[in-house]
């Protein structure tokens, strides 16, 4: 078990997949992180050297991920609402924001779009 940013990862897991479990780290960011610290894409958590773990941790802590990123997205939506934009209104009404039709199939928008958007 290796701690990365307060999360405990089993040693048999892939480093790439483990990084992608963080909100805000996708395929592109994980690839970049691996390249930066010379970790090959099929590397398992258990194969990481101690220094690499620390390096990855330091790099992750500099990135805007997890709750910081969630807060930023929510702030953006809030700003749209407060400035009275159409997009802000649509968020608040729980309707599609980007010009989709609303005659049918707005389930996703109804489910997700609200002031406190679920992320």
């Amino acid at each position, binding site marked *: 078990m290796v701690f990365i940013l307060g999360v405990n990862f089993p040693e048999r897991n892939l480093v790439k997949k483990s990084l992608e479990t963080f909100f805000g780290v996708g395929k592109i960011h994980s*690839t*970049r992180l*691996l*390249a930066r610290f*010379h970790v*090959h*894409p099929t590397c398992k958590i258990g194969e990481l050297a101690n220094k690499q773990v620390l390096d990855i941790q330091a790099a992750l802590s500099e990135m805007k991920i997890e709750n910081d990123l969630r807060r930023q997205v929510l702030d953006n939506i809030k700003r749209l609402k407060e400035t009275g934009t159409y997009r802000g209104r649509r968020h608040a009404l729980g309707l599609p924001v980007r010009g989709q039709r609303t005659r049918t199939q707005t389930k996703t928008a109804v489910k997700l779009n609200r002031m406190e958007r679920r992320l």
Partner: protein
Amino acid sequence: MVSSFCWGCLTRLPSAPRALLPPTLTAQRVAAFHTSTALLAAKKGASAPKYRQGTSMTMKKKKRPAERTRPPAVGERKALRKRIVLSNPNALEIPDMKEVSNETMVDSRLRGSVLGLPVPMLDQLRAVQAFQPKQGWSIFRRPGTVVRRETLEIARLIDGISGEGEEKGKVVKKIVSGARATGKTVHLLQAMSMAFTKEWVVITVPDSQELVTATTAYAPLSDENPNVYVQPEATAALLSRTVTANPVLSKLKVSREHTGLKAPVPAGTTLEDLAKMGIKDPAVSWNAFQALWAELGAKSAAPGFEKGFQPRPPMLVTVDGIAHWMKESKYNNVDVQPIHAHDLLFVRHFLSLLKPGTGQSSLPNGGMLLYATSASNSPTIPTLDVALKQVAARQAGVRPSAPEFPHPDLYAKTDQRVLDAFDSYGLPAPKEGTLELQTLAGLTREEARGYLEYFAHSGLLRENLTDEWIGEKWSLAGGGVIGELERIGRRLRVNTA
């Protein structure tokens, strides 16, 4: 007083049990004698299609029961995939089969016959991964290879290099090429078996692909050289192969000081122990490999190390499937750009042996470099094709300025590094041979006869081996392509009786 009787329960009681009621006359019971219409009528009423319901049959997916078995242990599946069976007790033993030895390997009378590999050598050959899983070793009683013209050629070279004649200490460099199933990998295996017979040091890279597919660890060499990369695990595996296969390393002692290893190497350390330092700690495996390489190329001992210095044996270096090394690897550099395979030090080391430079020798104590292409597992690299044509042209004496010298297509993307890798410059050391291209093709008819007779003696082929029959099969096998001959040899066993 509250009665123990619950009214709620009473109201929910069924009106009357069904069995108590008098039997009603249903349609089915009436129609006891003429069944079909009544049954159909009843059925129709029960499952009449509802409003806007499709009438087509819908199949319910059966849910699979959850698998209870545990998956195989880590590495078990790969071990099964890579399993090599070298003997088949059901095949007949051939009584007068000869083995590879100092005498038989250069005996041209044995051309076309199958020479067995000596049993003690099999462990060494396994250690350097000379056998491949898809080759048909498992159909015969014991592994053996057919002696063809190219085998004898290479045997004479190996014999000459390890002998005392003027060929002693020569370096032969060959690229083995050829169509699919023409026996390139087995050609390397034959060379290895001869080298083991002569007690050479054999260093092999059996699978060049795994160095560039980004499945093994990599790291920049140092802070001063951030653009070249070492592969510690792969190097440790190479050292481990080399140590297991070459018991001669335990007799040789170090001849100079080595820096870069964790501890200083005292005089009297064997080369085996030196290599084991790298196996034990992959972090220094590249340094250990370089130290081992320097030791194997040493001609004399440094002061203070003279005691117990023995002349080093010649070396055989083989690489299979070099095309994988001629393109960008799957590794990324810091800027997320692919790293060229030639920037991996492991690859660079073996490719640099092809052109050691002015006055240098790639193997100072002599030996042979055999680099094979692969036709079944090979990326398409047009520049490599041109580079190999250039090697052949230089070998034929065509000058690079001549009009018939092959050049890459002007309108295609050319990888200059690939062209340069095969383009030797400067005057090499006197014993250094030029790079040659050896193209393997089919066997001759005589060799094909010997090979098919081997199948017949092993009980696989029950056929009267006439010249006509052999000629037919020789043609069917694309002019004696040995892999196709093997398929014919094993397929026909059911055909006859």
